[in-house]
């Protein structure tokens, strides 16, 4: 099953299971501009697959109200690049409702945000806005890389009693396909997954970067470099024990993501290592990330320059292994 189907299936199954679950967003009735909700309006009706006006703050704010009122809304942001008008509703409201009310109210909302570059998206259809919301206590953030995790984490997010920002990588939609069981299952929020065991270097990644890392690791195996790959899966709360364990395994750590380097999730991961694993590091921590420029240029040459690729990350991994 593709990553995209996994998302659709998770939503459909949860809507089937629980009448309180519904989806709202722009153009989702016709299936969404990404096809994530394809066929769902026919199945669940237009109130449960609700085409909203073109207003992100309202999509999130109305979802928050409905969530406090007992429903379990899934708010779709058409592109993660367009999530910023909803920042106030996410940071000032969703994230603080339980805390400020001293546990009297809570807000089980899921905000789905398709992110990342796919080729030909340009500055405003390619962004990785994780770092803006990362570090907002009260919010959970997930970013699956496989179809299995996409489904399991989305189900867990819908059932979670706190707001979850669900970053789905657009490049994964059709590029990624893996086994997804028919039975109901969830993937726990807050747990990273070892995607590959190895002894020479550790790569910590999430989203599309996981696939680049795995591909590079396969190739490096032929050069007798053994790579351990950890997929964070949840960005907040970070799975600290898993990060420390994976890092300790090799002592040589590369953190790899598509979001800009400065202030990204990788900074926190590196900080955790500097705080808690200093004596077991055999080489400086490396962050492999795109340069600190505002976003992906649209022209193919610019985009290629910006985006991490398996080739480029392999180079960097080899260099780390050789240190």
């Amino acid at each position: 099953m593709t990553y995209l189907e996994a998302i659709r299936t998770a939503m459909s199954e949860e809507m089937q299971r629980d009448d309180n679950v519904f989806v709202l967003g722009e153009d989702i009735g016709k299936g969404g501009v990404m096809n994530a909700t394809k066929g769902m309006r026919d199945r669940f009706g237009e109130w449960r697959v609700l085409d909203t006006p073109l207003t992100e703050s309202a999509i999130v704010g109305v979802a928050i109200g409905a969530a406090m009122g007992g429903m379990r809304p899934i708010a779709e942001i058409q592109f993660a690049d367009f999530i910023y008008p909803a920042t106030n509703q996410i940071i000032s409201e969703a994230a603080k409702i339980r805390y400020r009310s001293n546990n009297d109210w809570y807000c089980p909302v899921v905000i789905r945000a398709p992110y990342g570059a796919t080729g030909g998206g340009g500055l405003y259809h390619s962004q990785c806005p994780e770092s803006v919301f990362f570090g907002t206590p009260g919010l959970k953030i997930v970013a699956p890389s496989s179809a299995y995790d996409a489904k399991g984490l989305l189900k867990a997010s819908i059932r979670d009693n706190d707001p979850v920002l669900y970053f789905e990588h657009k490049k994964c939609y059709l590029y990624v396909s893996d086994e997804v069981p028919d039975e109901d299952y969830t993937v726990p929020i807050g747990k990273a997954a070892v995607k590959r065991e190895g002894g020479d270097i550790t790569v910590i990644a999430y989203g599309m970067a996981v696939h680049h890392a795995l591909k590079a690791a396969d190739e490096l195996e032929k050069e007798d470099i053994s790579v351990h790959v950890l997929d964070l899966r949840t960005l907040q709360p970070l799975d600290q024990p898993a990060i420390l364990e994976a890092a300790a395994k090799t002592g040589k750590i590369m953190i790899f993501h598509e979001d800009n380097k400065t202030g990204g999730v990788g900074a926190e991961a590196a900080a955790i290592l500097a705080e808690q694993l200093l004596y077991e590091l055999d080489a400086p921590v490396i962050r492999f990330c795109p340069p600190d420029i505002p976003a992906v240029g649209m022209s193919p040459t610019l985009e290629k320059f910006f985006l991490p690729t398996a080739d480029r990350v392999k180079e960097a991994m080899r260099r780390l292994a050789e240190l």
Partner: protein
Amino acid sequence: MSSPHAGRHRQLGLTDEQTLQMYTNMLLARKFDERATLIQRSGKTAFHISSIGQEAAQVGAAFALEKQHDYFLPYYRDYALVLSVGMTVRELMLALFLKAEDVNGGRQMPGHFGYRKHHIVTASSPVGTQVLHAVGFSLMSLIKKQNCVAFVTFGEGASNQGDVHEGFNFAGVFKLPVIFMCENNRYAISVPEHRQVAGRVVDRAAGYGFPGVRVDGNDALEVYRAVKEARERALRGAGPTLIEAVMYRIAPHSTSDDDMLYRTKEEVEYHREQDGIASFRRYLFDCGILNEELDRHVTDHVNREVNEAAKYADQAPYPAPEQALLHVYAESAGDDGCRS
């Protein structure tokens, strides 16, 4: 001697008892407010934000709605509103004193209401955000056929926030059962209405295809009527209503504000004379519902309640410091968070 209008409340469907209760609630809010100001000045508490001049509209609205059934999304001046839909003055005092027993556990500034049991939805400080939540509650009501409305208030300053407009449009498109009430007290801190609001708040409703109603916020019965009609419209599926209740903010913006930097004593005095509580009191006298003796009795009762509440809250303990760490997230997966 009864005035020509003396039967208004009955024509609107309010009993004498309810009307007296409305008066009591206004008075309770007013006395709480005055006491809170004094307490803050004495240095015992950090901050108070006053509602003086807005009580009549709030009580009028509250009585047109159904307690513990409709949803209330008040803004920070709505003491009289929350007192009318279930909160006690002791609870307001606990919030003022930031004590552990406060609904919010002393976490939030006073005036940031929230009380699940009473369907009072938790509020934040950034103005206007609650309008979208109200739309969300009304969407829930429609989808789940709850037959209830969401009632939300905000200042005329807040009415300019993007969220308010997006909320109007969203509710208008789906004809949702929500009532928007702007408490236009003519100032947003120091900025007067004409420098804040282009056009008139009430006229914005037409742009979203639903009715806008402008009422005298000092006339509790007028507000009652408007909210009641709005509620009926909402429940019969005819969509939202915007009510602009025109009033005046008698006190400075908050205990941190010096209003003499931007308005005159005379202007304030002029408006103080329009007090909606005083006119409601006169109306009750005219109707024969209230007389000097009963009024003294009500006032004494209200004062006693305020006294006791202040004393209780003053002596109540602060939250334990480590309480700060609780409730960032649900404690366990099954924890739905609410205490009720």
